[in-house]
């Protein structure tokens, strides 16, 4: 029940948007992708992606619709909108700035 600090929330948004850049996916798929890509380090609690997904959809960055998976299961697939592409670009830029700044501070003697 802690409020996520903005950076963390922003970071999760970035990960989700990036995952969806290549292809639409459902919540579980996005989770798996992030987990695999980070070698299991990120997304320990799988469900925590859903508030972010809801919010991104509400803000218009992604759009979801119900489809059927290959296994015949109903799932909600999300894809990036035009706004989402722009958000992704902005978020990547911010992340780059952030990581550069943090590195600078750490290197400071």
């Amino acid at each position: 029940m802690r409020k996520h600090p903005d950076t963390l929330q922003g970071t999760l948004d970035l990960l989700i948007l990036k995952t969806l850049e290549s292809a639409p996916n459902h919540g579980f798929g996005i989770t798996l992708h992030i987990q695999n890509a980070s070698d299991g380090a990120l997304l320990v609690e799988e469900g925590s992606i859903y508030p972010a997904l809801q919010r991104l959809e509400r803000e218009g960055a992604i759009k979801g619709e119900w489809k059927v998976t290959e296994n015949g299961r109903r799932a909600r697939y999300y894809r990036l909108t035009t706004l989402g592409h722009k958000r992704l670009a902005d978020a990547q830029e911010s992340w780059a700035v952030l990581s550069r700044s943090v590195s600078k501070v750490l290197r400071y003697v």
Partner: protein
Amino acid sequence: MNLLRRLFRRSRMNDEVREEMESHIAMRAELNEHSGMSAKEARVTARRQFGNAVAIRERIYERNGFGLLTSIVRDLQHAVRSLMRSKTLVAVAVLSLIIAIGANTAIFSLLNAILLRPLPIQDPYRLVSLSQSDATGRPTGLNEAMIRELGRQTAWFSAIFGRSGDRPVAVEYNNLVTAGNVYAVSSNFYSGLGIDPFLGRVLTADDDAPAGATPSRVAVLGYQYWQQHFSGDRNILGKTIRLDHVAFTIVGVTGKEYSGLEIGQTQQITILVGSLEQSVGEPDPRLNPAATPFNDVVARLASGISLQAVRAALSAEAPRLLAATIPPGSENRDLYRQQRLSLDSGAMGSSGILQMKFERPLRILMSVVALLLLIACVNLANLMLARALSKRRELGILAALGAGRAALVRHTLAETVVLAILGVTGGFALAHWLSPVLAQRAWVGVSPIDLNLSTDLRVLGFDAALTIFTISVVGITAAVYASRSDPAHALQSVKMPDARTARWSRMLLIAQIALSLVLIVMAGLFAQSLAKLRSRDFGFPVHEVLNVLVVPEPGPITPVDWASYSTQLESNLTRVPGVRTAALTGRTLMDGSFKVAVSSPQASLTTAADATIVTAKFFRALDLSTLEGRTFDDRDNHSVSNVAVISETLAHRLFPKGTSIGNLINAGAEPTHQGLRIIGVVSDALLHDTRQTDRSDVYLPASQQADSVWSMGCLIVRTSRDPSSVAAEVQKVVQSLDRQYVFVSQTTEERISRLLVVERMFALLGNSLSGVSLMLVAIGLFGLTAYNVSRRTSEIGVRVALGATRSTILWLFLGQTSKVLAVGLTVGIFSAILSGRFISTVVFGISPQDPVTIIGSTLVLIGVAILATYVPVRHAALLNPTVTLRHE
């Protein structure tokens, strides 16, 4: 609307989100299974990996913004479900709330109808009523000249109009003659008030004619009058009725809501001033600048000006106005110039009898009834506390699971809100039925009043306030308690309440007992007042007297020989079977006491007494015994000086030493009532008002004092059986003499009841409310004891096993409640004594701090307490010890 749409969309979204998450978990479980776990293990791990689905959903809902509204709905649903589990408790709580709120709303409705709601006319708050009075404050009325002068002040008033007092006439329609009341108004009366007709039209300036000429003889009927006497016949327009033999055409009927310038009084028949007078031999008042034809002069304020401004302007201009309107031929011009003009808001109509009589009593009644509400709320609070106690475990678990304090408070508050809503809805319905019933029962005997008891914003607002009050008092107490529950403590199986709860509960009970005692004492006082007023020694046989109001037959007025007319009428009446004696008097019995100043050259002081003109048979009719001298007979005529008979009390007061016979007295200001020679003293009688304490009366003989056809307006008929049974016969006899006809006849008891309206209402309500409060106290004490008993059941088992008898156990528990009772009663007694001051005006013949009543009420409460305590204890003491010992 958007919110509603979101609400509906929300439940769909609920399901969608849930489905999405389940789908995720299922897919994870599938993956887990492929990695080698068993199906069951796979699912369990998948859930664990997912995290707290419920908490995540909560976060989503919160973020989506409509969390609050739906969680309120959910809380309420939950509250209803949990309340359903303890049906008896809920039933009792809701019932007591319904009664308390119903009573409060009913009384407030009455208050609203009589004192608060303005007249149902256009823009009532721009209406003002004008009055003129002499230096002593006695109203003198505005004369024609003054009305014309004020009418010229267009800066102050956009219209000024008037209405006469009611005038009894013989109404003849379809060959049936009944008695009716006619009001004469000015031609702009209806347009000034902004009244639209219900049927036909109202009186307008077109019907009018200049002074001296007769205006059109058209009449407008009041709605209720039209319904009752003309059967609501829609073809009434254009038909003719005769008022005192003069033909009038009915041109309209006013609406149901408009009943007149006085709240509660119907304007039966309305005609234009000047349309009737000349036909019955009276002068046209509009021709006489000194005439005061109107009882009520009302004006509408000109637009843009305030009442205060006009009032100030009026006092500034008053000297000039008075100087310009001095009645010609007036003896004392200076006296007229000293009169005062005043202006008051006319929104509530002319201050009728209803308002003056009931204002204070209704306010007192409201406070009394509010007491009951307080008791019901306290009761409810105690019940909620008990409930919270029993649900402590549940609440503790909720707290342990992470429910925030706010959630716990909301939880308990939701239950209170449900109960409060149920209580107010039921109470509202109860009041809807109750207030007309109260009005009817209390008003028995008076001319039927038409009160508009419909609900309006004020009543609704009042109920809303009550709801909020109830919720605040009850809910917050219980909720705050609930939120403090320590989970660790709650989860223990020990059912002992913490010291704070028990103390709260006891304090609430003490408050309840104290308030109930005050209520019971008040009820006792009201009931005794009423009984005393009814059972007073009236000094005459109250149950055997019929009062008949008689009115002169319409038509030209011829001089009357009173001696022969009254003798003939009285002897004709005596021949009616059932009638013992009949006497004509100037005023009826029980019409209120109107004292005049009485002085005597032979007395050292001035006092006051009621003066009545009576015929000789009066004293025999009422069985008044002659104590000194004689009563009236043939010797008292116009050839001798004027005489009088006085009552015993007056005689002793004026002439404490020696006889009163032969002394002279002056009774009031009338010239013929000066220098009256006392010829007799009769026994005291209570003739005018049940609340009277002074029985000073002066009786004047009709043979000397009856001067106009209006002065002998009442018949006192003494009967040997039920007075109402002779009414029809009496009416026939009166009308057979062709000089007077009967306007209304009532038994003396009916008239007394009419005077006791307020007392009856108080007694009625006092009884019912104290009954309810006793019931609530009994329930409260029962609950407390039952709780204590259940707590110590095992202890009881041990005691019984060790040889305690039932009465020992009873005393044990009585000891506990007796402390609460003692404190409660003490506080209650003090409060009752203090509050006695406020009800002293409505209590009669008994002190508001009457010790007997207080002691009696205390004993009643103690009795109820013992009973309420006994029942649960008896039950426990009878149980088999082995059963009780196993009880956890």
